[in-house]
């Protein structure tokens, strides 16, 4: 194939790059700002116009965050990872199986069931908190990581998403062919459906992980000892008595987001292509 310079009307106009540049700047700036605040002294931050370049204090602030009394930062990080991965894996598995059933299996009551599931997506989550806490108390789950994992093993959204994916990405003909060949339903699921939804499963898992990472309301209520805290709850321990310590809080926030960023660099492309695959017939 001869490489030719693209005709003018097909070349990307400069203004497009400019727009993308603006978006990139806006997306990254808050992170950068967190770093700036975390690395400067309180008075630098209180100046106006505020300092826009990082100061020398970052390592000092980071050290304060990691050794702050009652904040077991590394433990919190681990807890959050454990909870996040457990939730992600569980949601993918349960949602895939149930989503497959809703998408490709015909059984009585199917339509009512999916209607019910989607309808529950409209209920505000804050509504169930107190009964859930009482329930967790009765099951002796309070102050355990299980209290975070068990209620999040399945979500309506996960099942809905999987149903859409499977419906869109797996042609009925393939399933029919397999079944004619004598494959049982579990076989069909394992050998045909699962491999096809790899990327979308990965994405669902990643979003479940992220949701667990950022969740703060329920963990604050149900986790009571510092060793059990997840990151967002541990961050709330960084506040002084009255008022604010911006550098400390932003330092904590930055350190809480940085692992995700690093993870992101590795899986970012996967995530992106997965989001897009999932949305093809969205």
């Amino acid at each position, binding site marked *: 194939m001869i490489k030719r310079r693209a005709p003018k009307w097909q070349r990307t106009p400069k203004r497009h790059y400019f727009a993308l540049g603006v978006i990139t700047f806006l997306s990254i700036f808050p992170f950068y700002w967190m770093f700036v605040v975390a690395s400067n002294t309180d008075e630098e931050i209180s100046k*106006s116009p505020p300092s826009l370049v990082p100061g020398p204090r970052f390592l000092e602030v980071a050290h304060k965050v990691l050794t702050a009394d*009652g904040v*077991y930062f590394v*433990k919190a990080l*681990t807890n959050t*990872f454990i909870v996040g991965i457990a939730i992600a894996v569980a949601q993918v598995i349960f949602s895939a199986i149930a989503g497959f059933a809703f998408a490709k299996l015909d059984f009585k009551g199917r339509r009512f069931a999916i209607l019910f599931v989607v309808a529950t997506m409209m209920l505000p989550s804050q509504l169930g908190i107190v009964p859930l806490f009482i329930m967790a108390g009765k099951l002796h789950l309070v102050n355990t990581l299980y209290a975070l994992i068990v209620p999040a093993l399945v979500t309506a959204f996960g099942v809905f998403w999987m149903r859409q994916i499977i419906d869109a990405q797996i042609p009925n003909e393939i399933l029919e062919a397999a079944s004619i060949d004598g494959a049982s339903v579990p076989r069909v699921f394992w050998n045909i459906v699962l491999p096809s939804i790899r990327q979308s499963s990965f994405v669902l898992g990643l979003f479940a992980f992220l949701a667990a990472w950022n969740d703060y309301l329920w963990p*604050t209520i149900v986790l*009571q000892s510092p060793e059990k805290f997840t990151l967002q709850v541990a961050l709330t321990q960084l506040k002084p*008595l009255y*008022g604010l310590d911006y550098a400390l809080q932003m330092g904590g926030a930055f350190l809480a987001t940085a692992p995700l960023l690093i993870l992101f660099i590795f899986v970012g492309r996967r995530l992106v292509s997965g989001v897009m695959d999932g949305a093809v017939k969205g």
Partner: protein
Amino acid sequence: MNKLAKSKVFLIALLGASVTAGLMAAPAKAVETTNLTIWTFGEVIQPGLQREYQKLHPEIKIIPIKNDVDPLHQKTTLSCQTKSGPADIIAFEVPYSGYWRTGNRPACFQDLRQMKTSASNVAAGVAEGLSATDIKKNYLPWRWEQGVAFNDSVIGIPTDVGGLQVAYRTDLFKKAGLPTDRAAVSKLWPTWEKFIEVGKGYVSKLTPAEKKSNKGFIDDAGTIYAAIMNQGTTKYYQPDGTDAGKLVYKTNPQIKKAWDTTVSALNAGIGARLGQFTSDWNIGMNKGAMATILAPAWMLDYIKKQAPDTKGKWDIADLPVGGGNQGGTELAIPTYSKNKQAAYDFLTWYLAPEQQLKVFKTYGLFPSTSVLYDDAALLEYKDEFFNNAPVGQIYTKGVLKLKPIFEGELQRKIDSTFGAGLGRVASKKMPSEKSYATVISDIDKLFKN
């Protein structure tokens, strides 16, 4: 490896890494220790003192868990509902004391009259066998009352008391032609009306550029409301022999007085309209956006941290009318605690006068233990940052003027409703009468359903 296997390996590696890190980060299992879990907010339990106690008692491990005030209240409520939780000591703020002291809620906490100190802290200066009844005499009556339930059960012991005085900028006062010596300044405003007058004078001397950049005499004129309310004898409830008290938010003249005075301050434009603890407020402190702040003792430390360059440019004068307060905390022991004796021993040590004096000198939290108010160590303590003002003496003077006020069940809620009402007037969204009427109807709603 195909993609599916690759992702499996990746996930397993991630899981493995997390578990390893978790094992490494787990705190080492030490000697047989008793864990004292304290539910608190901010720095009610000072880290320095915590370390000191753990040195005295290696068998005790103190675990403070911080929350914001309202989420902490929520957790306390939930744990009392389920009669279980890990907390051995719980801190609650005075505005919430009305809630815990009434109804059947005192049952959530141990009656501290039935506890006695053990011998474990005798060497540190805390005698054995002290119950709450014995400690009571260390405190001013009105402050002690805030931890006593209606059925006379002592559910909480006071920690610090906010107190309230006026921190002012000597350099800005000088520029405006006002005296700078603290005795002279205190004489400028024996009443709130005079305070507003001084404010008006100050603002009239600002240049147009300064006015545009939103400089003012006081940071937030709305703070005057709380100050005046605390100078009275009744707030929103009146004691009437029942535990709930009688609601008087519609009739108490103190409220009207506080409201009207604040509104006239707002209308006189003496405030810079900077909400306290916002980032604009921090910056404003550094830029001289306000010449005065109504400052409880704990705020002095805050000023030092946020505006170190203003060192030596501040001083402290008396609050108009005299006697002021803002904030204060109680420490309580929940009934479900499994370590009540250890908790009580720590509590009594922490709140003993010697420790409270240390807290004051290091962190500026003013002690509630009135035995200190005759102590030279307190009275002669001077703060360099504030032009060597004898802060111990100044705040003692103010605190001694306070009278007991009955705090009712929905104190905090009603207070913040009034605050919101004044906020509407400050931002010129509603005229004063309409905003006041809205406040009253909002409070009515609280009791309607």
